[in-house]
């Protein structure tokens, strides 16, 4: 019981962090067809900006300012970089974002050094909120959940209820038609890219404080964000949400299970020594790799993702 409750809680929490990170990428990917390799780098920039700004203004102002600044950076990257590369095709775009990710990491190292920086949540949020079976649950984690859910709702309402949202939604599925109707599609693209980066930065402001803020943080989270986007499906915010939570839960529950392959095979009457390489591997051990397995399986058997509207 205890394990199930905590695993669910932890899984949802991790899933929500993934969602915050990947929701922006889903928008960008579905609209522009660009799998932005640098997305996690904007997440990192968010954390570092919040650390730098927070030193003078405090956490709350930084939480507001850092995403806006990163969104500005994102807009510049789109306007002066991505847009020019666009005519060379998707491969060039992918490579460009690959290079940008590389550059951002190096620049972060140049400015803030190669060691982690001491960036932590404000004291108010560091106290435990409640205690369950002896385990404290820190308020910062709950705060993170609230922010993620709020972000999801706001984004959802914006897309569904506002005029801008309507245009963006239309551009998600029929970019050319939207252009023909006289909307400034490049501007919409730039806006979406900027907002997407801003959302990644918000995730960074929170994720950096929750986890660790160092130059490797983008690299370690980057690939998993793709998994979420691809598994969730093109153009589907809901899909990204479901995929994030799913991946969070899968990973967390797998950690809690100690069964190994030899146990599993034993059920079918096949005996494998649990000292051998294959036999000794437990589900818990491979938990962090499961998302990649999911990615490959989804791409093979259901290429449009869980809730995707179309194939890419």
């Amino acid at each position, binding site marked *: 019981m205890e394990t199930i409750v905590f695993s669910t809680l932890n899984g949802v929490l991790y899933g929500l962090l993934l969602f915050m990170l990947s929701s922006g990428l889903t928008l960008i990917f579905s609209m522009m067809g660009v799998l932005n390799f640098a997305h996690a780098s904007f997440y990192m920039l968010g954390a570092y900006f919040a650390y730098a700004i927070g030193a003078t203004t405090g956490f709350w102002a930084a939480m507001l300012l850092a995403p806006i600044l990163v969104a500005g950076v994102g807009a510049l990257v789109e306007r002066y970089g991505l847009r020019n590369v666009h005519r060379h095709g*998707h491969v060039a775009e992918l490579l460009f974002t690959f290079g*940008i990710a590389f550059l951002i990491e190096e620049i972060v190292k140049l400015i803030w050094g190669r060691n982690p920086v001491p960036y932590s949540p404000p004291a108010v949020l560091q106290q435990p909120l409640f205690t369950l079976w002896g385990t404290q649950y820190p308020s910062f984690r709950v705060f993170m959940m609230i922010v993620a859910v709020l972000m999801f709702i706001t984004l959802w309402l914006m897309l569904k209820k506002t005029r801008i949202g309507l245009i963006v939604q239309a551009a998600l599925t029929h970019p050319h038609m939207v252009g023909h109707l006289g909307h400034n599609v490049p501007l919409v693209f730039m806006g979406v890219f900027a907002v997407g980066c801003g959302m990644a930065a918000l995730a960074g402001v929170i994720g950096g404080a929750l986890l660790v803020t160092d130059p490797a943080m983008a690299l370690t989270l980057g*690939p998993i964000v793709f998994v979420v986007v691809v598994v969730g499906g093109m153009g589907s915010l809901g899909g990204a949400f479901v995929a994030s939570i799913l991946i969070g839960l899968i990973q967390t529950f797998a950690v809690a299970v100690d069964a190994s392959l030899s146990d599993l095979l034993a059920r079918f009457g096949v005996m494998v020594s649990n000292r051998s390489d294959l036999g000794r591997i437990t589900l818990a051990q491979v938990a962090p790799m499961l998302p990649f397995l999911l990615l490959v399986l989804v791409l093979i058997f259901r290429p449009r993702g869980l809730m995707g509207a179309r194939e890419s």
Partner: protein
Amino acid sequence: MSRTSTLRTLAVWVAFAAVLLVLPMVFTSRTSLTVMNVMGIWMVFALAYNMLLGQSGMLSFGHAVYFGLGGYAAIHLIVAIKAQRLGIPVFAVPLVGFMAGMAAGALIGWFSCRRSGTPFAMISLGIGELVAAAGFMFVSVFGGEEGISGDRSAGPRIFGLTLGPQIHVFYFIAFWMFVSTLAMWAFTKTPLGRLANAVRDNPDRVAFIGYDPQRIRFLVFLISGGFAGLAGALSAVNFEIINPETLGAQGSGAVLLMTFIGGAGVFYGPIIGAAIITFMQSMLSDFTKVWQLYLGLLFVVMVLFAPFGIGGMVARILGAVKRGELAEKLPGWLLGTLGGLTAFFGAVMVIEMAYRIREGGRPFRAFGRDFVHTSPLNWLLAGIIVAAGIAIVTIAVRWRQRGTLGAALRFREVAP
């Protein structure tokens, strides 16, 4: 193919072989031999990679998997040669690497080649992550973090090469590099090679004329995996050690970088890219700690302004020579190069001075002058140099677009 062009092609290959033979006599030091050996390995790998990227339009983020598996097959064989006295020369080990890479390609390509474009890239990324992680878990096959090491000087000899000294390894790698380059070049001339280009450009039309694009992608993938495996085997012989890191994202990223910077559009592009990046990796770190930043900068600038790569530039120059337009185009190109170099120098100044703000150390020195990062004047100077460089490049580009230098110097284009 006409007789003269056949002759010319032949001459190019003979010259290539001659250069390979003579190179170690020109660059005799240990360091240069080591670096050239590594270059040779990467050249084969990058050429194999370009069969996918340049020739078939398949972007892979996990090609190091085949490189690494080929390397593992090779190192296991090398160990066996010594332990079991197999009587197989180490010289022939790359063939096993080729087969291992091909087998792995057959297994993974069987499902991943059903997709193209971004899904294919994503599958390759996922597979790459999975295989790399598995490499650390299965100690008996991959030797854990420390990998598996062997002794290349065991077993029978071929051409009198013991493979002990560096120079022997050089000729070993040079031989296999030459053979695989020739084979891969020949491949581009086969019907399958041509069809691969067609699949890249328009898969639907290929399907209409009765070929199955999936099947073509799969076949190319097989062969590319094979040559990647061969490169892995070369690496196993050269370093006499291979570890799971070889399978990981770093190698996959590096080969992509090399191929692209070298130029995916021309056959010899990856060769140039491999040479340049390997040199940067091994030697640049002696001069600056932030060499990776320069690499990133180079890459982004290339993607933005020269997506055809260095090989593409060479091809353009050669084309201009052929068409007799060199005299006309050269001044613009030279001006552009000048501007690029100026801007680059300014960027170097900014980066080196910025690095010293945090890390200290001796001031950045160039042209016999120290540029101290604490002086605002130097920062201003760096800014001016960058701006001037960009301005020169802009003029050079406009020169080409507008025809005359005078027109290029005007702010607005005057309608004729």
